[in-house]
């Protein structure tokens, strides 16, 4: 196979159908750009989830008796509780906070409000076992298992409102994916159409090739490569679009949100880690679409 010949054919084909080529590349770019945005949203949500859940604790407050007498979780009741918690699946870490430590933290938090500090005494604060869960969804079963155990006052969770937030965000993530998928389908059909058109505009060439005994690959490789070029160029444009979108839109509109660390900042690293995926998806989907189109619609 002579590469120069095949590439010459690809270039001619792309040039001859310049408007179609541009349309195919742009649609591919838009679809891949959306796919990329979808992936970035997914990443952001995942990272937010990690961030937030890392900050959220399940707290097992200990009884007044333990709070008063156990300063290092050395009593058999406390250490048994801690042991049970640590061996519960889904528990990442358990930290004991004594009444004194709780009071110190209270003082730190409210250091700006001396009147509050004056009212407070350590005796008012319970000691606690602060539990970090690897999977926040496990909270209900832990609450059920530990509420009412000897030495336990009550079990609380700061995560309930977050769970609701993320249920909503996950819905958003899924919707983004669905849109990206629908867009991908649109790009796919357009590529298929363009190849059919390209095969039609070059039917004389293809006819001559067939009758002179060119192999199937020789006849069809130019079409396949045209599709792949469109996929790859589309992906590159999509990445450029994502960068532009980040600089011109995301960074400006969400500046405050990033500042407050409510949403993790979107970095160039994120975009460039999505880029290879887009390139691969673009090239592979284009090639596959091209191959199937040729099989189904173009005679050999």
């Amino acid at each position, binding site marked *: *196979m*002579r590469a120069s*010949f095949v590439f010459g054919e690809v270039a*001619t084909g792309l040039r001859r159908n310049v408007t179609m080529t541009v349309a195919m590349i742009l649609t591919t770019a838009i679809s891949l750009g959306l796919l990329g945005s979808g992936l970035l949203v997914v990443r952001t949500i995942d990272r937010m989830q990690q961030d937030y859940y890392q900050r959220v604790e399940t707290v097992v407050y200990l009884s007044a008796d333990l709070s008063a007498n156990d300063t290092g979780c050395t009593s058999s009741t406390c250490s048994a509780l801690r042991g049970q918690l640590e061996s519960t699946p889904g528990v990442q870490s358990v930290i004991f906070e004594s009444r004194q430590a709780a009071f110190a933290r209270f003082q730190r938090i409210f250091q700006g409000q001396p009147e509050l500090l004056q009212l407070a005494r350590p005796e008012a604060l319970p000691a606690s076992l602060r539990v970090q869960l690897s999977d926040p969804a496990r909270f209900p079963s832990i609450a059920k298992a530990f509420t009412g155990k000897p030495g336990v006052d009550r079990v609380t969770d700061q995560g309930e409102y977050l769970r609701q937030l993320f249920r909503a965000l996950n819905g958003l993530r899924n919707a983004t994916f669905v849109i990206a998928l629908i867009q991908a389908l649109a790009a796919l059909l357009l590529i298929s159409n363009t190849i059919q058109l390209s095969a039609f505009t070059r039917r*004389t*060439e293809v*006819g*001559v*090739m*067939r*009758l*002179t*005994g*060119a*192999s*199937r690959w*020789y*006849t069809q490789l130019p079409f396949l490569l045209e599709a792949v070029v469109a996929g790859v160029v589309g992906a590159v444009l999509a990445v450029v679009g994502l960068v532009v979108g980040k600089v011109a839109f995301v960074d400006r509109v969400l500046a405050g949100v990033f500042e407050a660390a409510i949403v993790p900042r979107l970095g160039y690293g994120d975009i460039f880690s999505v880029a290879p995926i887009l390139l691969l998806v673009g090239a592979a989907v284009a090639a596959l679409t091209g191959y199937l189109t040729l099989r189904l619609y173009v005679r*050999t």
Partner: protein
Amino acid sequence: MIRLHHVSKSYRTSTRPALDDVTVDVEKGEFAFLIGPSGSGKSTFLRLLLREEVPTAGDVYVAEWNVGKLPQRRIPQLRQRVGCVFQDFRLLPNKTVTENVAFALEVIGKPRRTIRKVVPEVLELVGLEGKSDRMPNELSGGEQQRVAIARAFVNRPLVLLADEPTGNLDPDISQEIMVLLERINRTGTTVLMATHDHAIVDSMRRRVVELNLGQVVRDEARGVYGVGR
């Protein structure tokens, strides 16, 4: 070289078979006309030889190939050894004469060195050496058909099939094309030509195979187009 053995071909969309129990032998190096009224099956005959169609019954042989039973991936090998030209030339409008002829070799992966050597040779054979850089739309019909013949012949096929190659040309030009086809035939290439052209068939006095409604009704060694026409 070409052998049809009790070959029938029915197209799915038509009720009458396009070819009906046809048995014909064409020897290596022969020149034969395939004649008959419109719709008698001449083009179908040629398309079977190129494996553009498969026979409904019977066997088609070209050289050592059983064409109807050739596996897909070996079809290119057959077509590389069987050249063909048509009434409508089928040149690539955006390539020069040289490029059109070279195209046939490029697409079967011939080395560039070979192409540079044999393309001018074949253009000289068809009498177009002075017009190698013209585009097809700068050539007369007869010249365009010469390019098509050069392209079909440049890879030195065993067989040259021609489907009404003079159908679009006036009588004088047609005669020139026949001279060219004879020249090609003299190199040892078997030539099979489907035609309606009485004058040509009568003047050449070559073998004539006449089809009517898909059946062979006449096969003469040195025939004319037909009595009483």
